[in-house]
């Protein structure tokens, strides 16, 4: 014992020496780094916008090729005043959400069923995996024949596109839950319902979120294609109308709004993910 203590002491002494050297408080350092990080991220886009604006004003780029950012903002303002912009955004948003809800719920339900029941999986999984190889956008002509340019067409395409990523990731999530934890749950007398609620679902959640975020990306992509080809309202329709009248600023505006909506959906999903996966090392607040 005595020999080991004399071996330990110098190490402690070294640590004591190192400790008081930290003069800047940690929170301040973190803040500095955060501000620097955020700042660094914004330098390039703002710079590009400035170059773009300058190029347009100086006449390097024709108004009909790419209008200046200020012109796009002006177009947004005009459409906003006419009340059209919000109508189009509302219509597109409702389509996206409805399609996501339908496709997502079916995918989630089938993923759970096939993850929990071998019978169900043997029966349906091969079929589902086979149809996955058909790109859903290839169905556009067929869907127009079936539904015309009704809401049904958009809903069907979005739901179909969202279905697969959510189905595949839910199934994968359930199947890869640690079997040792499942055994523990059974050994500790959990009923099937409790086992699902306390072990299987939380264990599958990280994978399900991957599916949701992937699905959101597909949701916007599908909607853009569907609205551009076959619609009489919505952002895609607005862009196509504008193209006919050569209103390039409105076309660019539609593209930017799509991008912003996509970003918004992803941020919401990320926030939900962070909230429900607090336990996960990669989401733990440092």
């Amino acid at each position, binding site marked *: 014992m005595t020999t080991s203590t004399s071996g330990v002491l110098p190490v402690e002494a070294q640590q004591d020496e190192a400790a008081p050297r930290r003069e800047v408080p940690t929170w301040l350092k973190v803040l500095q780094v955060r501000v620097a990080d955020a700042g660094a991220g914004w330098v390039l886009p703002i710079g590009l916008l400035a170059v773009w604006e300058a190029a347009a004003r100086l006449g390097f780029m024709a108004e009909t090729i790419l209008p200046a950012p200020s012109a796009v903002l002006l177009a947004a303002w005009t459409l906003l005043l006419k009340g059209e912009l919000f109508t189009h955004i509302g219509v597109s948003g409702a389509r996206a959400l409805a399609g996501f809800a339908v496709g997502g719920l079916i995918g989630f339900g089938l993923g759970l069923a096939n993850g929990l029941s071998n019978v169900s999986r043997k029966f349906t999984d091969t079929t589902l995996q086979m149809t996955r190889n058909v790109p859903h956008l290839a169905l556009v002509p067929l869907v127009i024949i079936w539904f015309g340019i009704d809401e049904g067409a958009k809903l069907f395409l979005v739901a179909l596109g969202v279905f697969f990523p959510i189905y595949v990731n839910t199934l994968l999530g359930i199947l890869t839950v640690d079997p040792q934890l499942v055994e523990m749950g059974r050994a500790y*007398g959990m009923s099937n319902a409790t086992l699902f609620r306390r072990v299987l679902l939380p264990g599958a959640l990280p994978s399900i979120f991957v599916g949701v975020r992937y699905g959101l990306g597909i949701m916007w992509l599908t909607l853009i294609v569907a609205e551009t080809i076959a619609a009489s309202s919505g952002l895609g329709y607005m862009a196509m109308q504008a193209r006919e009248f050569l209103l390039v600023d409105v076309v660019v505006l539609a593209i930017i709004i799509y991008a912003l909506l996509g970003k918004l959906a992803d941020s919401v999903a990320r926030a939900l993910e962070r909230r429900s996966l607090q336990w996960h090392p990669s989401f733990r607040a440092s």
Partner: protein
Amino acid sequence: MSTSQDPGRGAQLRLSSVGRDFGANTVLRGVDLQVPAGQFVAIIGRSGCGKSTLLRLLAHLDQPTRGRISLGAGEAAGGTRLMFQEPRLLPWARVIGNVEVGVSDANLPASRRERALGLLVEVGLAGREDDWPGVLSGGQRQRVALARALASRPQLLLLDEPLGALDALTRIEMQRLIERLWLDQGFTAVLVTHDVSEALTLADRVVLIDRGEIALDVRVDLPRPRRRDNPELGALEEQILDYLLDGANKDQAPAAA
């Protein structure tokens, strides 16, 4: 000190010629064992001799191919609890939630929480109830697992090498903790271990499994808490290790046996 326990709390255990085959592989041939209520039994044996298999049979996670296992005396709510070699905590539940897994759903949430908090105090983790298991050390995780196993006041506690992955010092701490809780609560304990000296420090009785049967059954009637330098423990350890090494010789030359 071992007489201070209340034998009414423990389960009596009776195994009559219990066997388990996996296909053509006979792991347990015929195990006969009678454990009186409240006894602390340690099971030792070579790796792969079927210790975990036996424990899983006792925990009803598996069914014997032959023979009968009966759990005597007032088989009430708590029943049997198994503590695995790994902590097997739910990473998405906080420490308190993990301990509550062991408390029956029949209790009201408030009383489940209270019971779980009480157990955390017992295992020396008071104040850690809102931590995620991921931030605990290995020894602390095993303590949470122990609290979870004891939460239902089991009459039979099965421990499958729960201390195998811990460092020597934490191991000794955990051994003392298990001994103290066993003395307090009087459950019957079956501990599987690789470590002969751990078996001798903790158990009333050390059972050695060899070739699918019980080959040695040693009573350890020494006062607790036992000191590791006790010469009687040393002698017993020598005896058991000798048997194990002899057995190894027989394996190499089965014709001579």
